[in-house]
Each structure stands twice: as structure tokens, then as C-alpha cells.
């Protein structure tokens, strides 16, 4: 192999390694991106009513109120969000301890408001 050919080969390998590293990094970023769970809020329920998460896993709850002002609150999960009608609210959550948690609507929305809750199971 001539010197030029060796240089071209080295450049190609370097390029491939770089591209490979970039691809790996992109894949890692994709893997790191939190899982998104869509949640809808309407009087007097959240949908879904229950979600299951892994301990230490970061998830993005994308919560949308379909009707009136709602709240999204859990003391142990440190969540306290306001859900304006028609707007999407992003809540990042990384539960550290296994267990069952309840997220409630804490903005009074009518007679059955007290029943509006989302159960979070952390395994």
C-alpha cells in the first residue's frame, strides 16, 4: 500500500469511527430522553387512571386539561402544577422509592372533584 493509500485508509477509518461515535451518541441521547406519558384531565378523572414507573426512571408526564382549570398535586412526588384548560403541561418525574402514590386534582372543579386522582405505581 502506498503512503497516499495508507493515508486515505486512515482517514476513512477515522471518519467511520467519528460517524460511529456520533451515531452512538445520538442513540444514547435518544435512550436518555425521558419516556413521555400523555395524561388527560377532565371533570372528574384523569386518563389513564393508573401508570407504572420504574424506580429512578425519569418520565415526562404531558398533561392536558380538556375542560376547566385543574390541579396536579402530589406531596411525596413533589408535584404541584396548574393545568390551564386546553394547554399542555409538562411534568418531569423521577421517583426514587418504590410504592404507590396518588396524584390529585387540587383545584376545585365541581361536586365530584374529590374523586379525581391518578395512581402512580413505582416498581
Amino acid at each position, binding site marked *: 500500500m502506498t503512503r497516499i493509500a495508507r493515508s486515505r485508509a486512515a482517514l476513512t477509518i477515522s471518519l467511520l469511527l467519528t460517524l460511529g461515535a456520533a451515531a452512538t451518541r445520538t442513540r444514547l441521547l435518544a435512550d436518555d430522553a425521558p419516556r413521555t406519558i400523555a395524561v388527560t384531565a377532565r371533570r372528574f378523572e384523569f386518563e389513564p387512571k393508573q401508570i407504572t414507573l420504574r424506580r429512578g426512571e425519569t418520565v415526562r408526564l404531558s398533561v392536558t386539561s380538556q375542560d376547566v382549570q385543574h390541579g396536579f398535586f*402530589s406531596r411525596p412526588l413533589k408535584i404541584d402544577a396548574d393545568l390551564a384548560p386546553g394547554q399542555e403541561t409538562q411534568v418531569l418525574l423521577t421517583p426514587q422509592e418504590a410504592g404507590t402514590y396518588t396524584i*390529585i386534582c387540587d383545584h376545585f372543579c*365541581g361536586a365530584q372533584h374529590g374523586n379525581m*386522582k391518578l395512581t402512580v405505581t413505582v416498581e
Partner: protein
Amino acid sequence: MDHPLDRRRFLRIASASLGFGALYRVAPLAAAPGAARTLDLLGKKNGERPAPFSFVQLSDTHVGSESPANPQGTRAFEQAVARINALAPKPELVLVTGDLTHDSENAAEHADRMRAFRRIAGGLTVPMVRCVPGEHDAGLDGGSLFRDAFGETSYAFDHRGIHFIALDNVSRGKPVVGPEQLSWLHKDLARFPTTAPIVVFTHRPLFDLRPDWEWFTGDGDQVMAALSPYENVTVLYGHIHREDVHAEGNATHYAARSLAWAFPDPTSGAPKKPVPFDPKSPFANLGLRLVREGNRTAGARPGVEEIELRLAEQNNLVGMQQFLKTGETP
């Protein structure tokens, strides 16, 4: 030289559960050493010697509710009015700690429910009735209908040396008091010495009783921080439809039963659902029972709680009425 009455307890609020509410008796401890002298001192300073009185707390009448857990409608409320009117000595004050009415999507219907409450409560023959809203009264309209029917949602007044503070933790929709009311509270309290006996009445608990049942107030810790320098603080609230006593710092928090339905014990593992109505014992969960010290109904649970109010002596002791009249601080 310290005054000989330093930190002696001489005022007492005794709370007797009446089943339909709670009766509080505020009385100087006549038997306490030095009490007579303290009363004389307050009398001279105030122009009015402290005198015993009693008041009643009612809560969560939910007028207009058609819940299966409350098929009797306002029957318990009406009985409570009759029982209070029959009390001797007659209470001087009735405090209603929220959810006077059940909410309605129809504002006219909700206003009718407010009028129905006023009609029934209007049968009380006590001199004063004071109310705070619950979320079912004020959570949907920011308290507009409540204010039309009952006046402001937060305020303060004084009665026989006790400073009463009505706090609204419902009309912002969320369980909060809010920065404006907190600011007002700080200004209101600044008029009083730390020995002033204070009774706060509100709807939701001001501490984390059971946040996942919405039994809390988000900024309740700020309210209690404002009250923390005061030595004699009693907080009366409703919302949880059952009795509860919680002591923290200088404050003791008392929840009253509902006049519509009961919620279960939150530590029992039961879900947050009304205790089912039992037609064989229509008032069982509301506990229509009358307890009087020294003359308890046979078989009734005593349920008497006593809140000792300590009035710390100060060299420049002046009574509550004096502060109110002159704005002086000792």
C-alpha cells in the same frame, strides 16, 4: 421583680363535643392561684373584667347535597339549631367552618342553597353567627356568591378578650390562603402581644393531615409560622367531616364533624368515600349526642377536650380589650 402571676394559667377554653358540633367554654380558672387578682387587673386596665362565655362550632352542612350518604338533607342541621337554642347558658357565638352549601353548576340554584342555609341558621337565637367558606361554597366562583350572602371570606373580630380570625383557604380554587391574605394576617397579628388568646377558624386543615385526600393547605405552614410567636392559638376547621385533634407548637387544631355525612378514619386504610348512611342510626356518623360536663347523657362518650390557654404575665400587662381600644402594645 417578676409579677407573681408569671405564666400562670388562668383562662381555659373547654371544648365539649355535642355531636352536632362542638361547644367551647371560655372561662377564667377561678380556682387558679392568683386568678382573681389577674381578673381584677384586667378589669382595671380594660374597663371590662373578663367573663366566661361559650361558643359553638358547626361545619359542613352541605345544604343542597343529594348524596346517598346524606338522604336526610338538612335534618341534622335543623336539629343542631334547635339543640343550640336549648343550651343553657346560651352560647354567645356560633362559628361555621365552611361548606355551608353544596356547589351547583347553576349559579341561581347555588344562590338558593345559600338562602336556604341563611333561613335555617336564621333560626339560631345566639347573638352572633360567623362563617367562613368551604370549597363547595366558593371554589367555583372565587367566593362571589358567598360574599353576596355572608360578607367577606376573611376577617377578624374580638369577643371578650379572644381575637378571632377567619381565614379563607378555598376561594382561590386551590387549597391555599394566598400572599394577600398572609400579608393581611401579619398586619392583623402585629397589633397583639404574644400572650393574646387567638382562635383561628377556617375550612381546610392548616397542616398536612392527609395531602392525598386534599386535607391540607399549601401555604398553611406560612400561616402557622405567622402564628408561632403567639402562646395561645386554637385553630378550628372542618372539611374532613370527622373529629380530629392535632397539637403542634403553641397551637392546637380541632376539626368538627359534618352535619351531612362522615368520612372514614384516614388511618384505617379505608378509601376516601363517605361513610354509608345507616337508616337504623340516622345520626350515628354525625353523632347527635349531647355532652355536658357534670351532666352527661347516659352511655354517651365524654368527648370533652380541654384547651388550656396560657396567658403569660408581662410587666406591662394589659388586656385584650385595651389593645383593641387603643392599639397599644405592652
